[in-house]
């Protein structure tokens, strides 16, 4: 199991979707449409879930059949015998799999502890859907056994029942909290602008401008000013 790398955690959740039709639409399609309609960037409900670096949702409808021609085996017995027999040739093909349920897949990379993160998901996830405020329940509503989820602790238990462990988790980023990362990005942006705008100034003028700049950006104040989670414009 390798769900953590440094202070970053990888959560992978596969929630089976109920195999039913409601008003002519499958529950999987309803769930997929709800995911499509989530607002993006700073308006995404995930922007409100503390310490979410990157996250995604999709519906796994089925697995793929490997009809490709390549083979990675040096010696494959069935492919040798298949030269002499049609039935052996057919048996050498990969087997065909069909999933019996469709799954809502949620994959997130976040900073910190899993229980705290899931509590944040339950409490903070909200977005405007054509004038209606929606919680996290709206996305998971048609998943098997989700009707038993009533509060943050049952939500945590539910997500853990659907959780799959990562075999290998690679963290190519810094190990800082999201708040720290966003403040750093804000400072990089503002200081890059400052350096470009103040070229050629006299030493005294530059020093004065720098003092004003530091008062404005407050480098050690993580709360503000900073970028907001999901900020998509400068």
């Amino acid at each position, binding site marked *: 199991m*390798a769900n953590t790398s440094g202070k970053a955690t990888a959560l992978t959740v596969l929630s*089976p979707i109920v195999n039913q039709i409601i008003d002519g639409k499958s529950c999987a399609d309803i769930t997929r449409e709800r995911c499509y309609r989530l607002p993006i960037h700073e308006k995404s409900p995930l922007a409100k879930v503390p310490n979410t670096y990157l996250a995604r949702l999709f519906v796994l409808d089925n697995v793929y059949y490997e009809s490709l021609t390549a083979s990675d085996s040096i010696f494959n017995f069935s492919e040798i015998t298949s030269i002499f027999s049609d039935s052996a040739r057919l048996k050498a093909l990969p087997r065909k799999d069909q999933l019996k349920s469709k799954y809502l897949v949620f994959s997130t990379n976040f900073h910190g502890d899993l229980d705290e993160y899931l509590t944040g998901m339950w409490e903070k996830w909200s977005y405007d859907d054509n004038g209606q405020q929606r919680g996290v329940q709206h996305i998971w509503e048609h998943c098997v056994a989700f009707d038993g989820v009533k509060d943050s602790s049952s939500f945590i238990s539910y997500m853990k029942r659907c959780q799959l462990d990562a075999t290998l988790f690679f963290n190519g980023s810094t190990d800082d909290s999201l708040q720290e990362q966003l403040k750093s990005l804000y400072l990089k942006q503002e200081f890059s602008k400052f350096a470009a705008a103040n070229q050629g100034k006299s030493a005294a003028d530059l020093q004065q401008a720098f003092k004003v700049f530091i008062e404005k950006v407050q480098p050690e104040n993580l709360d503000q000013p900073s970028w907001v989670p*999901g900020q998509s414009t400068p």
Partner: protein
Amino acid sequence: MSNIAGKAYAMNVITPIPWYKVWLNRLIFWAALKIPNVLNGLLTLSLIHYARWVIIPRDKFPRLDPSQPKEDLNYSYMLFFSNFNGSWDQYVDSFTFAIPSGLDLFWKMNVKYPKSVPLTPFHNYIQHNQIDTAHYYNAYPMAASNDVKSAKNVKKALIDFNAASSNKSPDEFLEDYNKLLNQLQNDFGEMRPTPIVSLAAQAVKERVMEEQRQSH
């Protein structure tokens, strides 16, 4: 559908692996964690924010209620999730050119894996097994993974400089300031919304237009 959130691309790939080879694949991943050289190859691909491999044994797909049909699968499955900067081609090709042997080790046990070299069969394999993302969220859509790393350097250097030099004489301040700028040359750069560089661009454009239409 959107595989893109700002500068990040979300890749999801699901591939079958014979159930009796799963232990071998786990052993390879375990070794990769223990032998730093293997993961160092991934570190050279600084365009990656986070990536993960998840193996689902064929009898371990979550089943939460007796009413849910039990899966009856021939194969176990390996899920690969990645968050990277740039286009699909840039990413897949950079894997091939930077860590072809490591990549082959990770997927070697998978059914019909063609190896990462040459490129075309590998592209076909990934495309064949890729699933599009329905909702992708990125906490910093304007920033690449390298921006996040360089921003950390900028913050630390700025705080240190402010503490050490802001109250010096103007000439000494200027000298230190110029040193600071030299030190941060590779970390500077304004960040802006991305030029979209992949096939999902149209999907993103349509969704943004739809969002704007709804807000009017």
